[in-house]
């Protein structure tokens, strides 16, 4: 069943829509219940289980993916809104059988335990590093006028939207720091 719609559409035509968007650089087209979130579209219709459902309300970050290159919580995005847009999930962070430097750093630093928040942490970190590259400030940036310096305090603040009950936080910060330093 993987790769195709796994669940049935249970609503009538008025309440469902044909939608086409790219997932991990491959075009996907399907008919979805308008209520279906991006998270559930990935998990239940596209067989992409990397993005996790931890709270389904935008409060934990486990479902983080990149939407047009920006990190978002996929549980709060309705898939029907995504026509023509591009989604990258944890499965698309590196080529087949490869690890991105960030993924490799997560393993090397033991930046996870149960692993459930990890795909969200990785996508969030990926998006966050791009935000830093764009010069975006954070709540702990002293000088709003200067490009941010990615201190540990900056990493902690910028990763605050991803909860980890195993509390791998110090190792997540280390993995992000290490990845940022070698870019």
């Amino acid at each position, binding site marked *: *069943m993987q790769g195709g719609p*796994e*669940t*049935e*559409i*249970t*609503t*009538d035509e008025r309440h469902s829509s044909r939608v086409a968007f790219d997932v991990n650089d491959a075009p996907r087209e399907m008919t979805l*219940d308008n*209520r*279906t979130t991006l998270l*559930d579209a990935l998990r*239940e219709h596209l*067989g992409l*289980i*990397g*993005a*996790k459902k*931890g*709270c*389904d*309300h935008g*409060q*934990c970050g*486990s479902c983080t993916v990149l939407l047009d290159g920006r990190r978002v919580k996929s549980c709060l995005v309705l898939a029907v809104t995504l026509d023509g847009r591009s989604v990258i*999930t*944890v*499965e698309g962070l*590196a080529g087949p059988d490869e*690890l991105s430097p960030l*993924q490799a750093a*997560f*393993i*090397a630093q*033991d930046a*996870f*335990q*149960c*692993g*459930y*928040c*990890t*795909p969200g942490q*990785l996508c969030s970190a990926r998006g966050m590093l791009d935000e830093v590259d764009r010069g975006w400030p954070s709540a702990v940036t002293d000088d709003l006028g200067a490009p941010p310096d990615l201190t*540990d305090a900056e990493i*902690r*603040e910028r*990763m*605050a939207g*991803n*909860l*980890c*009950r*195993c*509390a*791998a*936080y*110090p*190792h*997540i910060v280390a993995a992000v720091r290490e990845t940022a330093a070698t870019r």
Partner: protein
Amino acid sequence: MSAGAVGRAYPRLEGREKVTGTARYAVEYPVDGVTYGWAVPSAVVRGRITRVDPAQALASPGVLAVVHHGNAPRLAPGPEPDLWLLQEPTVHYRGQFIAVVVATSLEAAREGARLVRIDYDAGPHSTVLTDDHPGLYKPDHINPSYPTDTAEGDFDAGYAAAPVRVDVTYRTPAYHNNPMEPHATTAQWHDGRLLVHDSNQGASSVRATLAELFELPRESVRVVTQHVGGGFGSKGYAKAAVVLAALAARHVDRPVRLALTRQQLFGPIGYRTPTIQRVRLAADADGRLTAICHDAISQTSTMREFAEQTAVYTRSMYAAPHRRTTHRLVRLDVPTPFWMRAPGECPGAYALESAMDELAVAVGIDPVELRIRNDTEVDPDQGRPFTSRNLVACLREGAQRFGWADRDPAPRSRRDGHWLVGSGVAGSSYPARARPCSATATARPDGSFLVRINVTDIGTGARTAMWQVAADALGVPPERVAISIGDSDLPTAPVAGGSMGTASWSWAVIRACQALRGKLPEGGSPDRDVSAEADTSDEVGGQPTLPRYAYGAQFAEVRVDATTGEVRLNRMLGVFAAGQVVNPTTARSQLIGGMTMGLSMALHEEGVLDERYGDWVNHDLATYHITGCADVESIEAYWLDERDGELNPAGVKGIGEIGIVGAAAAIANAVHHATGVRIRDLPIRLDKLVGVSELA
């Protein structure tokens, strides 16, 4: 064996799957024709369902069934009344699952659950724990089988006669485990056999419970638990999700995925009981304890008695001639409390280690020194020497690493701008136990080995640790060993909990590997698969009863904003003595995780109950705060090289709980040192400090 893989740092075996999103959790297996279950919670606290009207739900597109007590498959009444779900119209607490809607999509299931109409006859209820509750009683024993009360000497006389006394009461709220993966199950029935992919901490026990409930032979039930998104005790036994999913799948005769919502995790799957703890300590002028009393009050449900062993920590931690501990319970109209990381020891140590700090202040002795002075080589409870007790070594090493010697003991002695800075210490201990376990080891002609054992890796690194243990027991490099875990068809293993997983599992792995080596040709590989199995029941059961404990010392430095009352942790450092550490990488992560959960307990978490509704109103992760990334500036864990020959073949004590024990006390003690204000009800949040006159 010590020169081999055990003790060396290895990355997790499943690391690659976890960082690429290919590790499958309970509701992530592709299943043909799968349907979706959505649990319906009761809207009243206590009462009786008078009518279930499924019509509107069934008329909703995609809804296949509404399963409730009137139509659900029958379960055998078992020893776990909490799991006797959808069998009777009785409601025991608000949020109890009283129906499941099954639909062909998640969206339809959610909406269907909203549309089920249920009428009740509701009765009066009581849901708040108080120290004068008329229902307070003395249970026959406390978890798992400790005596309810203990007494030695004459506490009242000893206390009355002492020159220095502390009499303080601490309160802790309900805590909710909140693993990142909710309790979740995919259930499938094939020819009368039940297959579940389930998120739990022990597939063997879940299989046994399901077999009992559905009146099946154990061989007819298979529980697969490859990856688990945390549990922290809450997945220690079969819980509602797996039972509901199996009931629903049988009812609709199709596979069912059922995950509880985050909101539904606040209660029905268990939680740490709130506690009210009075601690009285008496000492001579040198700080030597003469009398200790710890009176603990906690709650249980009307369904079943769960008597948390809150004061057990105090029985063995520090010595005194006059000692007493008591436990009292109240049966409330609440879900049954359950395990949460170091049940008993965690809240108990918060109280005792806080009181020790208050005693240190009262007697004018450094709190590290006070603990050293009251160390004991003999277990005050059992009267026998500890197999090993390195509390003092942990305190000394921790003090040195932390820079404790520079500390000015006076509260409010350090200021950094608008921050008041202080530091605190606490002891930590947790019993080192083991349970019977079985395993098999197989040698193959190609020189490789396979070890099979139904271990559950809930994020502890169990898979990797057992692989290391097996390699050493086989005397081969770990690359030649494969390990198979997380399936109830594998040899039976006990739960990943109580800090006894590694001890229990490694025991069976080592015995199976030793037995296999006895069957193999000297120095060569067999010409066909050769297997050996081991069951440690006799050996574990025959072990002498001795006081076996892991120890630790927790150090914390906090800063408190003198005007807003905000509390932040600057740094925390723990030193532990927990026997052989199998994998330093995963061990460090687990200890830091425990310490962080202690930080969360000290400063952030609180289940806030509204008596009128009888449930916790802050039942999500936006309103029930757990510690986040920005809260953890520096947490470090270290351990001593400890060898204890009275434990188990691998010499391990377990590290899952010790990291949280004492952590909250160290932080609370640091807050007192920073501010001079003693907050005795957790969490220590700004609302308890802002505007307090001592602060400014």
